[in-house]
């Protein structure tokens, strides 16, 4: 089940994209879990025909799952991740434009508009919107997108809820053995079921057997692939981190490493990349990049590029500091002549950074001091904290309590006696990362919801609403200059500016949600 803030945010997104009727259906599914059509009718009091239309639209956009075919009642389930990803669509199209040009961006935009499309439909729509477009160009772009994994085929299996599949496969595994099962065997059955679901997903991605024969296949956008690139270069999260920590040379080296390692199968949650040889990286560094600018060589001997590269890699791997803190600060790991990018470590650092920024915002640098202290040392008593963090006890106590209200720190009671007398128990403070991230994520959802709501209510203000309606008239949209008064045009421009600012803020907050949710799923498993 999804928490209420995420549910509200999803309903908001659906409302702005698909209308208030569809939003009512979505909200019923989000608050009450799996439902079948009759129950949706009951809970939403909408006409069955409207509900069917909404359900079909949501299915087409990959937002709903269904139960498998052999159950008697068709149950529908909402796909929360997919809904939250809709906030990133602008970024995906931008990245596709950057890599494949305007045509690539248009193809991705089209596929995102419709959820999934067949290639002939893609060509037809593109030709309608752009003149002088050759089908061969479209085909080429499409081929490139599919072969690099940005688009993937969508099969009927992907519309069945993964939990259903998990339960079904687990039951099959358990059914294979005739006797009663021990706990260990049950666990193994569960693992096997999970692996099978994952394998099927991979096979879907692999099953692109040539574009020419696959005109009947529906293609949809592969979010994982785009997420990988957002993580690597678009949001410049990794690069910027390297830049801030070291210098431009290091950032260039990391960029080249990420280019060299490019596996279409892997999603953004991989713990580390496949090993890449140093020579491979060397070939990806652009010619004009001067790596020697960032390193100081005392001797007159001018080192070769590859030596410089090795130096940078050594720096990035914290080779001089093999302790745990050094490893926690590294970007890559070296083993022989192979380099692996340590995504796990990098993700964790990014999340900690997000946590510290949020803490600094609310509680100032003293709050960050306390949080960092507790992260390093574990659980501590309040007196010790005030001593080590060099704060007066009278400041420390309210600070700790306000940090705990916001979920950054938590309390652990250690009773001295069996009666748990509060005067004789130790109260230890510590940072529970899972809880802290969960609180941050919830707050981010609330913020996103507020932004969306503000945008909606700005558009519904009477003056703006009237102008918007007027500007959508067909005669006015042709001839804006004459038919809208100067005041109206100014109001419209002011509203558009406000809307763009809100979208900008939304995009920035969404980046944080991306770091916390998409990059962090190695730690959290909802199904367990």
């Amino acid at each position, binding site marked *: 089940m999804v928490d209420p803030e995420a549910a509200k945010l999803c309903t908001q997104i659906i409302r702005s994209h698909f209308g208030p009727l569809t939003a009512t259906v979505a909200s019923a599914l989000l608050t009450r879990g799996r439902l079948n059509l009759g129950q949706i009718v009951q809970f939403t009091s909408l006409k069955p025909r409207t509900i069917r239309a909404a359900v079909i639209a949501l299915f087409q956009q990959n937002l709903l799952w269904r139960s498998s075919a052999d159950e008697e009642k068709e149950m529908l389930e909402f796909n929360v991740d997919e809904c939250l990803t809709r906030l990133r669509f602008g970024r995906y199209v931008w990245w596709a*434009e950057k890599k494949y040009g305007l045509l690539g961006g248009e193809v991705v935009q089209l596929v995102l508009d419709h959820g999934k499309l067949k290639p002939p439909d893609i060509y037809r729509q593109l030709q309608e919107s752009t003149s002088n477009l050759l089908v061969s160009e479209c085909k080429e772009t499409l081929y490139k997108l599919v072969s690099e994994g940005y688009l993937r085929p969508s099969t009927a299996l992907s519309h069945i809820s993964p939990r259903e599949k998990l339960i079904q496969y687990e039951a099959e595994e358990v059914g294979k053995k005739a006797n009663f099962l021990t706990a260990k065997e049950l666990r193994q059955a569960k693992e096997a079921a999970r692996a099978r679901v994952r394998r099927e997903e991979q096979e879907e991605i692999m099953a692109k057997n040539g574009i020419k024969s696959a005109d009947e296949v529906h293609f949809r956008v592969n979010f994982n692939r785009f997420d990988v690139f957002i993580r690597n270069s678009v949001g410049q999260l990794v690069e910027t981190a390297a830049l801030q920590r070291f210098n431009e040379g290091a950032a260039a080296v990391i960029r080249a490493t990420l280019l060299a390692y490019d596996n279409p199968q892997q999603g953004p949650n991989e713990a580390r990349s496949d090993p890449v040889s140093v020579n491979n990286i060397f070939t990806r560094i652009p010619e004009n990049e001067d790596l020697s600018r960032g390193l100081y060589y005392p001797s007159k001997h001018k080192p070769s590029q590859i030596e410089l590269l090795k130096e940078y890699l050594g720096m990035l791997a914290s080779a001089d500091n093999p302790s745990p803190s050094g490893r926690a600060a590294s970007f890559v790991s070296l083993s022989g002549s192979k380099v692996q990018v340590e995504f796990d470590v990098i993700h964790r650092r990014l999340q900690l950074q997000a946590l510290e920024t949020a803490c600094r915002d609310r509680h100032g640098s003293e709050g960050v001091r306390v949080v960092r202290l507790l992260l390093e040392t574990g659980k501590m008593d309040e007196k010790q904290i005030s001593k080590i963090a060099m704060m007066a006890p009278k400041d420390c106590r309210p600070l700790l309590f306000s940090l705990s209200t916001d979920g950054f720190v938590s309390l652990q009671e250690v009773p001295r006696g069996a009666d748990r007398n509060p005067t004789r128990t130790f109260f230890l403070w510590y940072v529970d990362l899972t809880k802290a991230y969960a609180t941050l994520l919830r707050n981010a959802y609330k913020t996103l919801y507020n932004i969306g709501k503000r945008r909606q209510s700005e558009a519904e203000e009477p003056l703006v609403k009237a102008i918007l309606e007027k500007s959508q008239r067909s005669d006015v949209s042709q001839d804006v200059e004459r038919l809208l008064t100067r005041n109206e045009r100014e109001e419209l421009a002011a509203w558009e500016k406000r809307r763009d600012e809100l979208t900008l803020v939304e995009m920035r907050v969404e980046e944080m949600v991306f770091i916390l949710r998409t990059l962090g799923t190695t730690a959290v498993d909802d199904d367990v």
Partner: protein
Amino acid sequence: MSRGGRGGGRGGRGGLANNIPPMGLTFADIQAMSREATENYPARELPVLTEPSEDEKRICQLQNGFVTRLRRSQYYIIEPTKTNDLERYSDRYRPSLASQPVLKRRDLNPAFFPPEIFEDYFNPRRKRKVTKATSTKKLNLDDMIDENDEASPLEQLPRKGSDSGSQLEEEDYDVDEEFDNDYAENYFDNGEGDDMDDLGDGGGGGGDLGNEHPQFFTIPDRRSEV
């Protein structure tokens, strides 16, 4: 006039849903107040929006484009309503409800959708197959013995409720069949056996009930419309 005197003070009366702050303050005053520190509230420093880069502007443009395009696409579900306002000149230029595209069957792959919902949407007049998952024994209250008529309907109801809960596609609750069963026979005590010696009103009341044509509550059953 007293009316004029009491009516003075634009927006000051209750009953006007106005956003004007009370007591002669204006919005500028309130803003200034919130900027300075008072005892209860510390001074606020509102964050300033950093200017967007070119990339960010393009991304916002694309994101807003999605919302605008979806509004006019077939995936934005609306219900056509009829307004009885006067027809106006600008109506012919407004995007009418008919201009909103609808979902087309040929654009969608039926394998992805739940079959019943898909078929029922694009084929609203087909005969829906009524599935009887478990046997529904219709309650025949006529067969119930009179002495137990209070006990047995209550006993039977929970079971019938759980049966009908699991099948939404039952047969139509045919209005015509009503006259045969249910409470018809057990509803009225038409007063034949009553001893009416002492009761003047009771006899009249019983007589009233007995003489009229039996009134039924019919709860329209929409389950078949689903």
